[in-house]
């Protein structure tokens, strides 16, 4: 199969940042499990993925505006807003719970659309537009939930933050002890949620004209324009989808903690971490290169670093320092290619 091999090599060389991040993640994850007293157990995997869901979704949300060549400073805030909405609405009868979840996701999506409208029709740079709308989102979140709290349905929280066995057992869909179910019943629900939503939405989106236009805009907006691509539609779609993914993060956080919390500093740190995760996953801040799956990997990598602090009993005070160094090294590797540019005037265009 020389053809297949050649294609694989091409695919890897075109996604070198993503490939490197994935390899590092796998290596670090294996090492982590060897070092962990209960390594390679379902329980550890469940705990780790539970703590990663929110940042994974926020990082995927951030990916879309970054691919356009911009930044979305409101993703953390939209996540917080969705979190607070969910803490009020996701309880009661099963019908009410489902309706509440849908309203939560709709809130974030609508906020993303608002971001898109401001950027496209207001002709405002994404970074400043989302700085403002992010503040509005936090304001709304504080209005909905001035104090932390809420009563998100407990069964739901239990079912979605454990393995598949507990999910089935909680709702009694079928006999959780059935023989055929045993091989997969250990699988963590949070990991399943991450994989289904991110792959299920991202891969089809990337293969639409709108999705491709997002890449084209980030790579060369003038060429996209000259080729007659739907530029406005792609920008609106990118921000709307970013709002949706951020809301997914907020909803899960509410279910996981059974509560909502309009925490301003938490929103800010989620936004900043999302940018770090996007870059670690191989997406270029100049736009046009990368993807949501890379950000997923980047976010997991960022979380995994934090888990190391626990098992190695390193002073948690050192965590920001080490994360900063890791990010700096990763970004420097990406900048190496500028050394190859022969006409230095091109570096500035």
């Amino acid at each position, binding site marked *: 199969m020389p053809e297949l091999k050649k294609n694989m090599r091409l695919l890897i060389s075109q996604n070198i940042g993503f490939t490197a991040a994935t390899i590092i993640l796998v290596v670090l994850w294996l090492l982590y499990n060897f070092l962990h007293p209960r390594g390679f157990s379902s329980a550890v995997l469940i705990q780790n993925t539970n703590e990663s869901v929110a940042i994974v979704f926020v990082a995927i949300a951030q990916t879309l505006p970054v691919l356009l060549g911009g930044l979305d400073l409101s993703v953390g805030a939209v996540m917080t807003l969705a979190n607070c909405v969910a803490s009020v609405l996701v309880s009661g009868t099963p019908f009410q719970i489902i309706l509440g979840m849908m309203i939560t996701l709709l809130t974030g999506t609508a906020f993303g659309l608002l971001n898109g409208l401001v950027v496209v029709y207001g002709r405002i740079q994404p970074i400043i537009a989302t700085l403002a709308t992010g503040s509005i989102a936090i304001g709304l979140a504080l209005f909905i939930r001035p104090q932390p709290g809420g009563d998100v349905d407990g069964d739901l929280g239990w079912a979605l933050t454990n393995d598949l066995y507990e999910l089935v057992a909680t709702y009694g869909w079928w006999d959780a002890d059935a023989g055929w179910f045993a091989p997969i019943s250990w699988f963590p629900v949070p990991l399943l949620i991450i994989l289904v939503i991110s792959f299920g939405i991202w891969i089809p989106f990337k*293969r*639409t004209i709108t999705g491709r236009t997002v890449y084209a805009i980030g790579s*060369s907006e*003038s*060429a996209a324009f*000259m080729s007659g691509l739907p530029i406005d539609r792609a920008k609106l779609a990118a921000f709307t989808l970013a709002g949706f993914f951020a809301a997914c993060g907020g909803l899960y956080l509410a279910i996981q903690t059974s509560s909502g919390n309009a925490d301003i500093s938490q929103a800010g740190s989620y936004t900043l971490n999302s940018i770090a995760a996007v870059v670690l996953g191989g997406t270029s801040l100049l736009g046009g290169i990368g993807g949501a799956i890379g950000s997923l990997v980047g976010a997991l990598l960022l979380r995994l670093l934090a888990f190391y602090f626990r098992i190695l009993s390193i002073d948690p005070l050192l965590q920001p320092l080490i994360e900063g160094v890791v990010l700096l090294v990763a970004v420097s590797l990406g900048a190496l290619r500028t050394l190859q540019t022969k006409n230095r005037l091109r570096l500035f265009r």
Partner: protein
Amino acid sequence: MSKLAPIMRLSGISKNFGATHALKDVDFSCRPGSIHAILGENGAGKSTLIKIMSGVLKPTSGNLYIDGREASLQSPTQAASKGVVCIFQELSLVPDLSVAENIFLDSPPKKWGMIDRKKQRVAAQALLARIKCEDIDPSELVKDLSLSRRQMVEIAKALGKKPKVLILDEATSALSSQDVETIYDLLEDLKCEGVSSLFISHKMQEVDRLCDTLSVFRNGQHIETFAKGERSDEEIVKLMIGRSVDAQYPDKRPLIKRETQLSISDLKWGGELQGVTLKLGKGEILGLGGLDGQGQKELLLALFGVLRGVEGKVEIDGRAMTMRSPASAKTSPTNFALVPEDRKTEGLMLEMSIADNLMIASLASISNGPFVSSTKERDAVAKGIKKLQIKVGSAKHPVSTLSGGNQQKVVIAKWLQTNPNIVLLNDPTRGIDVGTKQEIYKLIHELAEQGKSVLLYSTDYAELIGCCDRVAIMYEGKISAELEGDEVSEAAILSAALNIGDVLEDEKRETFNA
């Protein structure tokens, strides 16, 4: 000429950019099954014409007919849907997407609402095979391809739109000779299929070989259309010139022997510079001419230390020099100054004040230790403004408030502040008014009188004739001719630029006989 009805017809088309008339009342038509060359000097209106035909620009006045019906083209996409496709010079490729994605960028094959990547790949492969580019993998990213391969992708992209009118804007200039042959065959095929190809090229051999109909443009006007063979090369060159010289130039300086200040030998960089050898005398004004994109800009950039990986030798006053960066090129011992191509992005910081822009390249000369001295700055700014007679309200205003001509004066003044020995000018009078042009010519002469050596690249042949002591013409990355004294004529420059040697001889003979 074919008797078929024209596919596309332009009637009374004019296009103005502000006060400039890029096209004046142009009637033009192209017929199916023909290869039609459009000839003209730089700035004759060729690119404006094709931009209007392909929907990039809208005409100021006049009508456009496709297949006999009036059409108004709002965008390149709309033009393509009506069968008018233009091959831009790698303008429409997205670097970070794959070849196949680029070829079907706005209309990919689909399956269940999503892009069918397999089908897209196969279709791209078929199109690439048609132009004998089987070596290009459709999955490769466009940015990883060489310039000539990108151009072939651009051609495949145009073919994918099934054109009835195919416009090639110097599409062969970046190609290898083998690819050029492929394109010739392709155009012949398309001709048999009834496609009308419009071919813009500066290579007369290419036009001779390929085209059946020729149209000459000059000063935004359509001068004449004729079948191949009706006119000789000399006649065509004459049709292309014949322009009134509207700018006043300072008196010609006597031709004297000068000691060499700058000597360049066998300078090479990428595909753009193929071994440039040139000497510039002390106090001389050397014009650099030729068609656009023959390596003139790269030569200036190479001397100014912008390009990496330049091979060859550069000597100043007999000493070998290397320019590592603009910062090193502008200082002793090289003392270069470069007035760059695009004053808005490379020449000025538009939001900053006139004073800041004037001094930005020579801050060390007005500083006391690490601090910029405000008194020295004020004096230097006042002197610079006075010397170039820049019309300013206050030097504190942003430089963007000035007119184009005065902005250009600021760029020149900024470089004179560094007290350079060799001044490189990249088309310094482009897009500025006649009055300011004259002042700039006068200034160039003054600089030369002070013993500074000037290398002036200009796209305006009249300027090269009127302003320079000597003119070097570049063609495909090399100096193709050096003209001095009475040799410098528009006909001589143009034929050297088109790389047709004998016209010059004929012209000489003619003037001799007359």
